[in-house]
């Protein structure tokens, strides 16, 4: 609860956050805003109007060279080689045993790729990709020569602002001539926003329509101010990591470090859509093919509370008196006004409708496994 944490890394917007009265926390080695006006108000703004996020802590790794496409197709679980320039795709990177190194978004640009990674994993991911790059040749090794793949960590040279919510398009259109309306979800264009060059991507982590703007660090402050001004009359407010978490949880998007990590696989986490088991080869394929054939022993489920109480990370999930899993994320859903959570449970208890309980402060509070997203996405 203290504002006086150890000095973490700062994004270019650090002073802006302080000036706007944000409560700052340490997150993934950065001093980041967790809330400005309040998590509930910020959450509702994103669902009903729009919110502005500083996501400059996220990492960006450039993957270039003539072997980049073939290399990423092997390093990632999703298909990369068939992506067109201007396309973005969600993917996992897995270890050979199927454990998740990170969940990422891969952007294919004209001559290279940008892999956007979680802030806490920037160094690990870069080292992992570099290790894979050098794993040539051999059975199960990289399909391309090390010198044909060039990795560059652009994280410190990149600021990331996101505008999310139903009014995003209208707001951003006020600051750019780029043909935003023609940009489909998971597509991007390069253009100028308020005069600053940006990679403008129709992506996000909230379930709402919205855009993410990758810009130079020097552009972050003027663009932040310009966006807040341009969106003010449409209800745009700055949004911190607190509401970012409740927004993603309502959509059941997993959070790395909470819901997925190196001890969990994409199949257990319900992320099979981003794993192409029919690809020729990719890191983790054998383990995941085997797991798919045998069936997973546990699944990441979403559940809603029937009794009174808020599930929190680490709380036991019970079937009768027996612990059958643990909560990985939980909160009071601002949209539903009821508590929701996610957690891994033994596969036999993972079916929608299954009644379980969460152990909260020594009491067994009933909950029920639900299918799909907690809140219907807007698009």
């Amino acid at each position: 609860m203290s504002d006086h944490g150890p000095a973490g890394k700062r994004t270019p917007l650090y002073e802006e956050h302080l000036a706007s009265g944000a409560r700052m926390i340490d997150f993934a080695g950065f001093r980041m805003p967790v809330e400005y006006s309040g998590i509930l108000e910020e959450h509702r703004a994103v669902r009903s109007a729009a919110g502005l996020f500083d996501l400059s802590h996220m990492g960006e790794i450039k993957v270039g060279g003539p072997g980049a496409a073939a290399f990423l197709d092997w390093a990632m679980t999703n298909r990369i080689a068939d992506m067109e320039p201007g396309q973005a795709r969600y993917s996992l990177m897995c270890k050979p045993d199927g454990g998740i190194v990170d969940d990422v978004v891969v952007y294919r640009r004209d001559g290279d790729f940008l892999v956007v990674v979680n802030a806490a994993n920037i160094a690990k991911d870069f080292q992992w990709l570099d290790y894979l790059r050098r794993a040539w040749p051999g059975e199960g090794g990289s399909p391309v020569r090390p010198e044909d793949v060039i990795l560059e960590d652009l994280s410190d040279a990149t600021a990331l602002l996101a505008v999310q919510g139903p009014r995003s398009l209208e707001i951003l259109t006020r600051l750019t001539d780029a043909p935003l309306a023609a940009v489909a979800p998971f597509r991007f264009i390069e253009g100028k926003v308020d005069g600053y060059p940006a990679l403008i991507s129709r992506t996000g982590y909230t379930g709402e329509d919205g855009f993410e703007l990758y810009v130079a660090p020097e552009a972050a402050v003027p663009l932040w101010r310009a966006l807040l001004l341009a969106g003010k009359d449409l209800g745009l407010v700055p949004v911190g990591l607190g509401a970012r978490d409740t927004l993603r949880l309502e959509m059941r998007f997993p959070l790395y470090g909470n819901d997925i990590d190196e001890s969990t696989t994409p199949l257990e986490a319900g992320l099979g859509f981003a794993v192409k088991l029919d690809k020729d080869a990719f890191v983790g394929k054998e383990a995941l093919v085997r797991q798919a054939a045998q069936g997973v022993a546990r699944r990441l489920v979403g559940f809603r509370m029937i009794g009174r109480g808020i599930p929190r990370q680490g709380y036991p999930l019970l079937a009768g008196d027996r612990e059958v899993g643990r909560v990985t994320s939980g909160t009071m859903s601002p949209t539903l006004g009821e508590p929701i959570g996610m957690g891994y449970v033994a596969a036999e208890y993972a079916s929608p409708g299954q009644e379980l309980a969460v152990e909260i402060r020594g009491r067994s509070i009933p909950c029920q496994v639900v299918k799909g997203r907690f809140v219907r996405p807007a698009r």
Partner: protein
Amino acid sequence: MYPEDLRYSKEHEWVRQEGNRVRVGITYYAQHELGDVVFVDLPQEGSIFQAGEAFAVVESVKAVSDIYAPVSGRVVEVNRELADRPELINQDPYGAGWIAVLEMENPAELEDLLDAEAYRALVEG
């Protein structure tokens, strides 16, 4: 933000003496630090707590906080309205956001609590 007629604990509860009883809540500072309160776990009426013992739980969107009994005593009343309107703790921490009334076991314990000036120094120092 810290009324003069209240006593305060270092754990950020306030107490208002009402004869042999005290009304208990959390301070302006505590609710501000917590952020939007979305859930309150109230104690059972009739249950007995020692000073310093956790007797209720207040949850914001992000955090779970134990609330400690500022003095020893028996719970004689709880604020049931908080079940449906936990936000009262943010909106009116010293009024409608009260949590419980305790019948004191030993009123001398009140002397161990801080006055408004000392509490203000604690949270602003």
